[in-house]
């Protein structure tokens, strides 16, 4: 079991400061959603957590250890990543790409044994991608690739998983399938999961806790009901919205409001129909 602790990190690219003191935690068995407007620093947090860029202040602890002191290969055995729209070598087959997830577990003189192949095949079954195994990744759709990337992170067998927009290219059915899968894995294996999500409704439904980032700072964090409020959405996104409670489970659900002054009308309609 691994706990992710982000402690007051500040970092930036060349001149621009992107994160200005961000602090949050992800506990084992917990799925935390990272939400916020475009360019607020969600992806930067994920890159910092995998040591692609280093903060100039603050630190990130994984299992109590500063990630700056963990060798890359060991880090990749603790922390897996589902990147957003990554470059994949189009001539490789889907199976070969998923097999790359075993790399952190293999030394220079090792080769993939039957065990690695079995792990890959099992991960592909769980993500419903076995039928793609022989296809070249250049021929696959965005949604199929997203599922492959999740299969790859499963073969990494890490105790913590980061995801950058895991549902970005998926239709609504696949979104639910994939998030259910991740949620189950998280619960069954006590994984610490941090997912950057654009869709506030999905974040609300699937994440136990949300961290709302704005301008490189944590604007709010807590349960979905605490974070997804009309006020926060107005302040962070600058958008008029209506936050309702989901009829099935009481979690907040967001409807956008296209024009000015219609929010109250919409609310009246919703209340009348007792949705």
């Amino acid at each position, binding site marked *: 079991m691994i706990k992710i602790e982000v402690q007051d990190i500040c970092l930036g690219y060349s001149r621009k400061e992107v994160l200005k003191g961000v602090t949050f935690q992800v506990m084992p068995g917990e799925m935390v959603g990272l939400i916020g407007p475009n360019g607020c620093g969600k992806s930067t947090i994920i*890159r910092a957590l*995998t*040591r*692609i860029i280093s903060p100039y202040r603050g630190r990130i602890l994984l299992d109590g250890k500063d990630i700056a002191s963990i*060798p*890359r*290969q*060991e*880090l*990749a*055995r603790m922390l*897996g*990543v589902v*990147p957003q729209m*990554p*470059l*994949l*070598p*189009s*001539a*490789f*087959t889907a*199976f*070969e*790409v998923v*097999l*790359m*997830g075993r*790399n*952190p577990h*293999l030394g*220079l*003189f090792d*080769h993939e044994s*039957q*065990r690695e*192949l*079995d*792990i*890959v*095949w*099992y*991960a592909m*079954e*769980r993500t419903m991608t076995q039928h793609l*195994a*022989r296809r*070249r990744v*250049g*021929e696959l759709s965005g949604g199929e690739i997203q599922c492959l990337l999740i299969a790859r992170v*499963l*073969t*990494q*067998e890490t105790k913590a998983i980061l995801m950058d927009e895991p549902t970005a290219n998926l239709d609504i059915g696949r979104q639910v399938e994939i998030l259910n899968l991740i949620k189950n*894995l998280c619960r*069954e*294996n006590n*994984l610490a999961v941090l997912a950057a999500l654009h869709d506030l409704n999905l974040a609300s439904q699937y994440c136990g806790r949300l961290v709302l980032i704005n301008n490189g700072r944590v604007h709010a964090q807590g349960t979905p009901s605490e974070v997804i409020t009309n006020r926060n959405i107005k302040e962070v996104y600058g958008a008029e919205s209506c936050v309702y409670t989901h009829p099935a489970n009481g979690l907040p659900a967001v409807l956008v409001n296209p024009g000015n002054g219609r929010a109250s009308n919409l609310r009246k309609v919703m209340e009348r129909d007792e949705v």
Partner: protein
Amino acid sequence: MPSKPDLSRQTPPTHLVRWQSRIYAIVGLSILLIVIAALATTVGSVKIPFLTTCQVLISKLPFYYATPVWPSGVETIILEIRLPRVILAGLVGAALATAGATYQGLFRNPLADPYLIGVAQGASLGAVIGFLLPTTWHGMGVGVVPLFAFVGAIVSTAIVYGLARVGKTLPVTTLILAGVALGALLGSIVSYLIISSGEKMHGIIFWLMGSFSLSQWTDVKLVLPYVVVGIAVILLYARPLNVMQLDEEQAQQLGINVERLKLVLLAAATLITAAAVSFVGTIGFVGIIIPHAVRLVWGADHRFLLPLSVLSGAIFLILADLIARTAQAPTEIPIGVITAICGAPFFLYLLRRRKKVIF
């Protein structure tokens, strides 16, 4: 998490990894290499029967004794003239093809070849200076030309590497651009030196196009360790090189120390290219075409692409050299001419036959 799956029913179909057919390819090409090498030793201006060649070669294997039933002149031709030449051609072909595959993989660029980052121009400049020096110095079996060519190749690559480095990282695009720019600079110096070289011009141009006509055992002994060690290191890094095909960020997230990998592979590939080029000249085409041909036939997985490139490169260059010395005997055709004339149509044929994504 698939840590404790019920693996009994989870066995993937073995054809998925296509390992078996590729292992057959490695074995098959190894046998073909030996046959071609023996064949190339047989063919030449003096006719020697294939059987006699085989007998002579086998008699030299350790733990085997045979009474010679052939004239000693035949043995000299085979062992002292043809065999070192064939072996050197094989080594150089293997080195250039492997270095090409490595650069293409490392830079994720199908146009990369072993000469992309200044090796060839550095070697050429060194060699030309060696030609123009008023000395015929020899030390430890190395003439001044190969020595200068080797030093030139290493120094120019080191300069490119130093120019392209940004802090602790080495951006691949910067490396390629620095290589192309320095290559152009050195190339123009070479051109200037050639036109002002007077009667030495013919020798220089012949060297630049590549030739095995002066091959000796001492050359083989000097090239062999570099090529063997360099190729061994590269083969060891085949799986990380596969992961590098994603992109650098993903490779890091999958546990690869990207900067160290780049340094090790660049050093190994540059070293084997420099060693190969310094004795026989800058032979073109092998390093870019052989890896692509292998990719077209057997796929892009470096664990097979690299060893298959080693074998195919060796076979290709032995055959090319055979043609170079026999097609117009007794005159020799520069081998760089042969590699392009024979290689390009074959490659274009492969390219048309398999219209699929190869890179």
